[in-house]
């Protein structure tokens, strides 16, 4: 069990985490969701004792991480950065880690086998692909057979097969009664893996709920529409009960009527459609909707990085 209590972390004048409180329970995969810069990695670094909190605190099984003895046997972690030295082989990386926590050397071969890196174990990690690096990170996390796992963006850089492997692994570990906290900014992936969700934006808690409840409460059917005569179409759609919102790319998101209805309305009005795309990933929409409320976040979610400055300049 991981506890985050009233956690605040400031770097200079920038507040990365703002009075955040949540708990992560064993036996299920908890997804830690938030856009880039929301404070997920910061929270995880504080939980692992790497960064000191400005206020509040975090515990694992009731104790601050720094007071754990042989922590790798209790908590496995994977952070966003690589965490290896490029000149050292995968085997030797895991070897020193096992030695530091009194873990049997045979376990190094076991985890290398488990993540599929046994063949390249003696190769220096500098030449590893992003996916291989992630697998090595997973191997380090599993090294001490820990009861608690914290993984920051573990599917980053993995191919489809790798993503499925992580998903199954996380579910299995949770089923074994372990506590699994998994961060991601990818909604679609989370929808398939997590049982419970902790959503943050700008360092603040937005939601702490089961995945099922989250989807049921927040699902909305939306359709992306592009048309040269959007004003004419828009008026007709609003009469049909649709809510219309312009998105950052200049197309329109219509909530309410189905794609078929929108197409019929367009035909009836004699308006050409350039795009008519039903949005299937409801979680993603909800998430965008939820996190949109923060000005800073909206800047960061524009079509590209420059939209933030454009907005500021306008």
């Amino acid at each position, binding site marked *: 069990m991981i506890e985050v209590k009233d956690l605040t972390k400031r770097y200079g004048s920038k507040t990365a985490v703002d009075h955040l409180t949540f708990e992560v329970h064993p036996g299920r995969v908890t997804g830690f969701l938030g856009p880039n810069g929301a404070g997920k990695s910061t929270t995880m670094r504080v939980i692992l004792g790497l960064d000191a909190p400005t206020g509040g605190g975090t515990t694992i099984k009731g104790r601050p991480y720094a007071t754990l003895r042989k922590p790798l*046997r*209790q908590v496995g972690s994977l952070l966003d950065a690589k965490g290896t030295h490029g000149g050292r082989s995968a085997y030797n990386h895991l070897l020193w880690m096992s030695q530091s926590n*009194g873990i049997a050397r*045979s376990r190094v071969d*076991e985890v290398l086998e488990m993540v599929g890196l046994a063949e390249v174990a003696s190769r220096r990690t500098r030449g590893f692909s992003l996916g291989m690096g992630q697998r090595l990170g997973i191997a380090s996390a599993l090294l001490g*057979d820990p009861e608690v796992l914290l993984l920051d963006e573990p599917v980053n850089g993995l191919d489809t097969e790798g993503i499925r492997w992580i998903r199954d692994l996380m579910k299995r570990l949770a089923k*074994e009664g372990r506590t699994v906290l998994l961060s991601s900014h990818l909604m679609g992936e989370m929808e398939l893996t997590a049982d419970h969700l902790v959503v943050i934006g700008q360092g603040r808690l937005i939601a702490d709920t089961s995945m099922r409840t989250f989807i049921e409460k927040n699902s909305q059917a939306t359709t992306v529409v592009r048309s040269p005569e959007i004003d004419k179409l828009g008026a007709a759609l609003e009469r049909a009960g649709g809510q219309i919102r312009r998105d950052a790319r200049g197309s329109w998101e219509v909530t309410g009527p189905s794609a078929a209805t929108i197409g019929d309305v367009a035909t009836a009005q004699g308006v050409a459609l350039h795009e008519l795309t039903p949005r299937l990933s409801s979680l993603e929409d909800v998430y965008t909707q939820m996190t949109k409320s923060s000005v800073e976040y909206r800047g960061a979610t524009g079509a590209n990085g420059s939209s933030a400055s454009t907005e500021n300049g306008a």
Partner: protein
Amino acid sequence: MSKVLIRDERPLAMGQVDGSRRREFTEVLIAEWTKFRTVRSNLWTLVAAAVLMPILSVFVGLTGSLQPDDTILGGSLTGATVAQMVAAALGVLVMTSEYGGKMIHTTFTAIPSRGRVLAAKALLISGLLFVTAFVFSLAAFGLGTVLLSSEDYATGELWPALFGIGLCFSASGILGLAIGTFLRNSAGAVTAVLGLLLLPTLFGPLFGDLQRWVTGGTPTAALERLTQTSDATPEVVGTIGAWPSLWLMCAYCLGALLLAAVQLKRRDA
């Protein structure tokens, strides 16, 4: 909790604590040794520090490029000052190499006690450097005595200077480690530590009355005094004797290490 996923000959009970603090420190020390020996650049740097002394001893011996008032020991250890700088650079790298790929995160999640990590690194690097300096300056002196005539030059006192020379290298490594901990960046920390080693002996007189405490406390000055080279003039190495100079330097380096430990604990990793 089921053990389906992991079959270990020796099951690890959760939260199990075995052994004393000493045993845990030994584990950290072994882990640090593994880290050290499994990166080639560390080994090459150590080799460079080692062989510089015999190589320059042979060079000096063959060319006979000694001052008339020089000793064979001093001439044989012409390379010692440069080797010492390499030793300091090695001390830097032992810490800064952890910051490249954020390996320090892995280190501190495996070993949350940062003081313990720094202490293990300090013990490891100082031990390695002491042994290396001891063995290879002895070898350099051996080569020097073969190549240089004891009729032309005084031999110089090998004992107990050799122990002091070993300590000089250890202390330089620890100074490098401390600077590396402060700056966390290889290039910057190597530059800084070389500056600390060189500048006081170059600009000693500028310090006025403080010179004996500044210049006399630098690792280079202590080393030059111990090697009994004719270069060790008071203007360059200060006016306090070889051994007081050595102890002063050791105190400075340990002081730097303590400050580094405080900094390491206070700062976010």
